[in-house]
């Protein structure tokens, strides 16, 4: 029993790494630009397919494929921000914040369905998986730790630390945080808000690319599996507080560990229900999330 719980906590912890890297970009775009980037998990799945292609055609490891996919997604992010989000936010004077959120959501829905269609045509609906050479597990006493999961977890933590230190230490990062806190005040002190939006979206797209590569290490994927992940990501940002980066870390840990324990104690088919009921309870008890909003 105890052993089961401990194993559940460990596997949940490793799962939470994937959750963190998937969600951090979503929280960042929501916190800074007030836009719900529904196509974020679609980016991750697209990046997973790029990793899959590089692996099956040239035998390149998914981690190495990051060198290709991060620049590609930074470019995609730049193009989408310039052509779609920037014109929408440009109408800011005439709209309330919530109207910007909803029209952004609709536009990015469009992006999501277009990408899904492209993926369905290029790779069909068959689930795919990457079989890395280092598959297996380490046994420490009674604990069993899967190696690909551990690598995915460590990789995610490294990327998240990079993003957070960029935000905290560089001038542009500080400008991004200032824009998130109050975009008018940021404009007053001379922050180029348009540029910070573009950079935010580029960073978010790059983290989605990383998430996709780490995803391939442990999970099979198909073109519409982005819908499965986006539900989880939405849970996490509500759990932690919308747009809060520390909230993402806490939310991912709570959701991942709750799912891991539920999987080892009950049955794996009920795991998702347990996790989602947790969300409803949090919404009832602490409507603004565990940490409140807008903390960086």
């Amino acid at each position: 029993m105890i052993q089961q719980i401990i194993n559940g906590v460990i596997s949940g912890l490793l799962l939470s790494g994937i959750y963190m890297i998937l969600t951090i970009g979503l929280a960042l775009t929501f916190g800074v630009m007030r836009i719900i980037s529904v196509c974020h998990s679609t980016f991750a799945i697209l990046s997973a397919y790029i990793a899959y292609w590089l692996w099956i055609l040239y035998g390149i490891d998914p981690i190495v494929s990051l060198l290709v996919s991060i620049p590609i997604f930074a470019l995609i992010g730049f193009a989408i921000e310039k052509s779609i989000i920037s014109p929408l936010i440009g109408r800011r004077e005439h709209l309330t914040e919530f109207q910007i959120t909803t029209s952004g959501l609709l536009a990015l829905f469009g992006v999501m369905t277009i990408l899904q269609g492209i993926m369905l045509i290029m790779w069909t609906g068959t689930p795919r998986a990457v079989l890395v050479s280092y598959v297996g597990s380490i046994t420490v006493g009674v604990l069993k730790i899967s190696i690909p999961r551990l690598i995915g977890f460590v990789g995610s933590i490294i990327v998240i630390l990079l993003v957070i230190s960029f935000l905290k230490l560089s001038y542009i990062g500080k400008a991004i945080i200032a824009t998130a806190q109050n975009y008018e005040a940021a404009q007053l002190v001379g922050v180029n808000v348009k540029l910070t939006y573009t950079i935010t979206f580029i960073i978010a797209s790059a983290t989605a690319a990383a998430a996709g590569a780490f995803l391939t290490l442990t999970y099979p994927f198909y073109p519409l599996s982005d819908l499965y992940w986006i539900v989880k990501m939405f849970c996490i940002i509500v759990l932690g507080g919308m747009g809060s980066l520390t909230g993402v870390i806490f939310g991912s840990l709570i959701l991942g560990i709750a799912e891991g324990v539920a999987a080892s104690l009950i049955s794996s088919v009920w795991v998702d229900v347990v996790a989602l009921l947790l969300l409803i309870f949090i919404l009832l008890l602490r409507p603004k999330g565990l940490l409140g909003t807008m903390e960086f």
Partner: protein
Amino acid sequence: VKLKKAHLNLILVAVIILLTIIPILGEFPMLLHILIVIFMYATICEGWNLIGGYAGYLSLGHATFFGIGAYTVALTLKKYAWSPLLTVPMGGALAVIIAVLIGFPSLRLRGAYFVITTLTVNYIFELMVTNMHWLTYGAMGVFLPPSPFDPRITKIVYYEAFLILMLATTFVCHRIATSKFGLGLIAIHENEEAAESIGIPTTKYKILAFALSSLPPALAGGLYSPYMTYIDPSTVFSVMISLNAILMTTIGGAGTVIGPIVGAGLLVTLSELMVHIFVRELNYIMYGVLLLFTVMIMPGGIMRIIKRWKLA
């Protein structure tokens, strides 16, 4: 050309009569099926439009109510052989109760929480129905006994039922849109803080709008399952149903009474054409491009364009 109101009403009556007598004019099984799908989606979209179009709160989970309606009718028909005439309203009532339960925690808050919760709830329902084998037959789905009547008659009966459902929903939505309640919803959409400050009970209105908006999809789902005679959780709780409702309403014109019908008619027809001429997957790309075009170039959808053109 400036059309008078009397002329418009005349055209409307003519269209309704034409739609009603189509099945009597000859045998068009394919056309009837496409029209049934259009009526079904138009009904779902009219429902979605109340909360998503008028109040501006995008629900990503209207498939939940469609699925609840479909499963209520299917399970009672299969296990107790209850008539859909009785169970379709039952499914509707159940959906309204569940909508209030979802709306209470998520609509108290302003902003994006509602959007996120509705998607999650949809997923919870799909999972629960898939996993509760003893009640719902699980992922295998429910096979229903075929209708005792001649297949042609059955199709006509369901055609007329879906037509009546769509017309009734549209009529009710038209009355709501012009009522104090409907204007209150529009005020919430325009500026919720200002609406609250002039004394509109925003939370009450939002929850009421969500509860009302859950009814048409549930009734449509209730008619869908005996019509198709087979349902499974991944079809009737599919996120694609919610997404289609959003797409069709937005492209047709969110916050207008006719917009959802125009959008449903246009997109269902286009996607049928796509499936026959090209591959099914192209639908996704077409939907996405149309949605982007609507949001970026003509916010307000086709109906706003028509209205502007009529005034000019």
